């Protein structure tokens, strides 16, 4: 398999801003290939590659590009608001291969006809924002960005913007609101951003990792990418491994790789594996049976989960699942934007109940009430954030409910004894 089909190939941790080294390693081959094609041809290549968005939803990237409404100058936005707990693969890319992302953005802009692009970097990554600003300057100085890129007549410029600390802004419509200096509320869909996005203009929002694979696809051709990984979910994917793993870090595997193999590459689990969360906080918390899951979008969906951002958090038997419940519910309550009632009030109640349970003040009735709350939130939340609370919550209660109940009983007993 060609080494250049992996993002890791372009990662340069010593001198990430050294554009010459980036070019030496094969950088800008994809852009040059794209400049020789029409917009439709570039979109065709990406469609044929089967690339699916790496932000979490797995929407086919070529289709998104193709759906950009005609008529008005569209915008391109790179979503670098990596807030999903357990996820650090965008940081990995941006810290080591910033030009790969800029190159991907330039190709995407060429495909959709954008002249202006933004990189929205989460506020918690200030050093990365600084680095990206430098990288855009350098790319411009070399003619890879800005006016008349590589004398092709095509111009595209990128501005770096930083967030202010909000998870929900990772949602593409909320991100656009934030980029327009508003509260980071998700917007109603339809209209989709590709019809009406930034400043009311058609806008494509792509994740950092998605854009990083774009130059690879253009450089190697659609077929080379499509032949890697799963049939209907091809290519490589970055996985963020953390928790009780011997060698945590970012690992790149073909889509569809078994979780067991991924963990093995990271040195395996420290201690005895008890639980594993896949896809981020919005993903289910599985028992060890998950080791045999294939990590791609369709397979994970079949398993009742989601590939999400590719976050994998391993937990050994030292972990108290009541704490996992508490951390997870607190996350939802703190990050709910508050726009819709089910999520605003639902996350507040879930957080309250989970916190009481973790403090040893829980009631057994809470468990059913938490499930009912999740049902309300799945049915009536405005955006996927509120709906997604059900996966981790229900999996925790299904898989580890007994443990949580006995924890509560034990706490109750200890309290009575001490009184």
């Amino acid at each position, binding site marked *: 398999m060609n080494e250049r089909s992996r993002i890791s190939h372009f990662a340069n941790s010593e001198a990430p801003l050294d554009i010459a080294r980036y070019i030496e390693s094969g950088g800008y081959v994809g852009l040059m290939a794209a400049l020789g094609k029409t917009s439709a041809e570039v979109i065709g290549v990406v469609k044929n590659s089967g690339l699916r968005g790496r932000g979490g939803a797995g929407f086919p990237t070529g289709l998104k590009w193709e759906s950009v409404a005609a008529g008005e100058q569209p915008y391109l936005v790179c979503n670098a608001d990596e807030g999903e707990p357990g996820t650090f693969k965008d940081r990995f890319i941006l810290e080591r291969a910033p030009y790969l992302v800029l190159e991907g953005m330039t190709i995407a802009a060429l495909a959709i006809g954008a002249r202006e692009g933004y990189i929205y970097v989460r506020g918690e990554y200030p050093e990365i924002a600084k680095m990206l600003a430098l990288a855009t300057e350098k790319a411009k100085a070399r003619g890879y960005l800005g006016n008349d890129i590589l004398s092709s007549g095509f111009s595209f410029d990128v501005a770096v913007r930083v967030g202010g600390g*909000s998870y929900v802004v990772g949602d593409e419509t909320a991100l656009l609101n934030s980029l327009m200096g508003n*509260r980071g509320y998700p917007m*109603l869909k339809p209209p989709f951003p590709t019809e009406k996005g930034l400043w009311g203009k058609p806008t494509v929002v792509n994740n950092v990792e998605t854009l990083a694979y774009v130059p690879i696809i253009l450089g190697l051709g659609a077929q080379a990418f499509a032949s890697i990984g799963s049939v209907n979910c091809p290519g490589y994917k970055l996985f963020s491994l953390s928790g009780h793993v011997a060698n945590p870090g970012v690992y790149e595997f073909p889509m569809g790789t078994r979780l067991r193999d991924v963990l093995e590459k990271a040195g395996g689990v420290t201690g005895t594996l008890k639980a594993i969360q896949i896809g981020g906080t919005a993903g289910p918390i599985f028992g060890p049976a998950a080791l045999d899951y294939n990590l791609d979008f369709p397979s994970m969906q079949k398993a009742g989960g989601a590939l999400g951002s590719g976050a994998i958090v391993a937990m050994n038997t030292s972990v108290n699942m009541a704490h996992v419940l508490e951390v997870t519910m607190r996350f939802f*309550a*703190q*990050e*709910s*934007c*508050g*726009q*819709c*009632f*089910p999520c*605003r*009030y*639902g*996350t*507040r*109640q879930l957080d*309250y109940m989970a916190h009481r349970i973790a403090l040893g003040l829980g009631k057994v*009735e809470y468990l059913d*009430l938490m499930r*009912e*709350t999740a*049902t*309300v939130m*799945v*049915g*009536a*939340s*405005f955006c996927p954030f509120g709906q997604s609370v059900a996966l981790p919550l229900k999996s925790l209660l299904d898989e580890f409910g007994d443990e949580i109940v006995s924890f509560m009983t034990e706490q109750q007993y200890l309290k009575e004894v001490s009184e």
Partner: protein
Amino acid sequence: MSVSLTVDGNKVTVPDHTSVLEAAAAAHISIPTLCRHEDLVPKGACGMCIVKIGGQTGFKRSCVTEAREGMSVWTSSPEIRDIRRGILELVLAAHPADCLQCIKHGKCELQTLAERFEIRDLHYDRYTRGLPVDQTSLGIVRDMNKCIGCGRCVEMCNETQTVASIFFRGRGADTIVAPTIGKSMGDSVCVNCGQCVVYCPVGALYEREQIDEVWKAIDDPDKIVVAQIAPAVRVAIGEEFGLEPGELCIGKLYSALKGMGVDVVFDTNFSADLTILEEGTELLGRIREGGPFPLITSCSPGWIKFCETFYPELLGNVSSCKSPQQMLGALIKTYYATQREIDPARLVSLSIMPCTAKKFEARRPEMNASGLCDVDFVLTTREIARMFRQAGICFADLDESAPDPLLSGYTGAATIFGASGGVMEAALRTAYELATGKSLARIDFSEVRGMQGVKEATVDMDGLAVKIAVTNGLGNARKILDTISAANKLGKPSYHFVEIMACSGGCIGGGGQPLPNTQAKRARRMEGLYMEDRGLALRKSHENPEVKRIYAEFLGSPGSSLAHKLLHTSYLDRREAASASS
């Protein structure tokens, strides 16, 4: 074009771009909502209106989903009912359970739905936010413990009124609606229009009541309570007692006020006629002297504070006339006191207004022509209805009676003050005749009537083409004001005369009117005023005999120095307030 769909199996045909919620209504199915309002942009916040749509996964918010050809919609199922109940329980668990003491008791949309869905007990542990109630404003109380975050007030204040005094603050469960940090309702840019109150589904925003103070004055044997009633109240108060919007209730109002113990009952319509004489004279003076144009009306206190805050450069264009409320207040404590030989300190001047901003206006320090407050207490239509109920007055069944003479006679021109365009029309009826000495052949100026936000016309005044504009709702006012401001800067003419009312539809849609105070109801109240106008023998302000008499006996002529002392006022540049945080 139209689309046909089925809602719970009932076939219904609706126009294109109709929401599923409205399509259901067409099929006589009422889908519950907590955030949607027929006058506002649906935002899909509450989630109560979810429905199932055939062939689609999950549930959809019917308020923001368009009805499509062939759709099959299911609005009720065990799952949907459970979710709706779940949302209500979640909201109620965070809500102070003080319905019995709440000003919105019986009118609260949350309470209504809780009843409809039979929320008898809550599975959740209750919590309260423990936030202090903001009582700093003279017009509006803000209690964020009761706020459910629907965002209607935010839309009204920011998009419709463009005052932008309140906005969402914080996030998640901590989200509230608030003025800028460090400010309260009382010292924010709020103009007290009360449209936030009108659209609040619960008791989070409400009028600052003065009922107790008024009862105290009525019960004080030393005090003589003198009341006045604004034009827009008479066609709306009936709604509080089961009558139709637009039904004229002025005779009943006189009876009810007397019945509850008010000593003297006057009518603001009298001073509306007086306003026309003063303002008409001002207009004719400006026409004679060639400006400054445009002259802008000054009856609406919400608009006045808006101008002072956002367009202080136009204050020179605003008529120096006090509003009819303040004119009558000033005359009660001077002219009336002298005529009846009463110590003005014994007089309590009470006004019944459709408006929350009038409460602020009455407390403006310059409003003291007699050395005492022109107006002591302002009650909204809603408050006076509460007092009638407390007094056991069966309002709908009352016989009609007459007001007290001296400051109560009025013409049709006065009564239409309550509708957007009314002041303009009344002024035109009088100014034309005063300017030309001729009698108007056609006194209905239909081009300035109606609910449209901006109305423009050119009126021929004996050879002079008078350009006029009428706006209602402060967002609409902004459109005209920006034009005027730009023209003024260039020294170019824009309009001669402009009427601005803070609330949509004019005073009939004021922040103190009976709830619900929808656009549809406002239109019907408006019709009621024009109907009264048509039925009156006198329809021009300068024909009002009591107005003629007060000029002859007391004021001299319109614009006299006494008239200026009592009936005119000055304004304050408040631009600083708009840009300074604290």
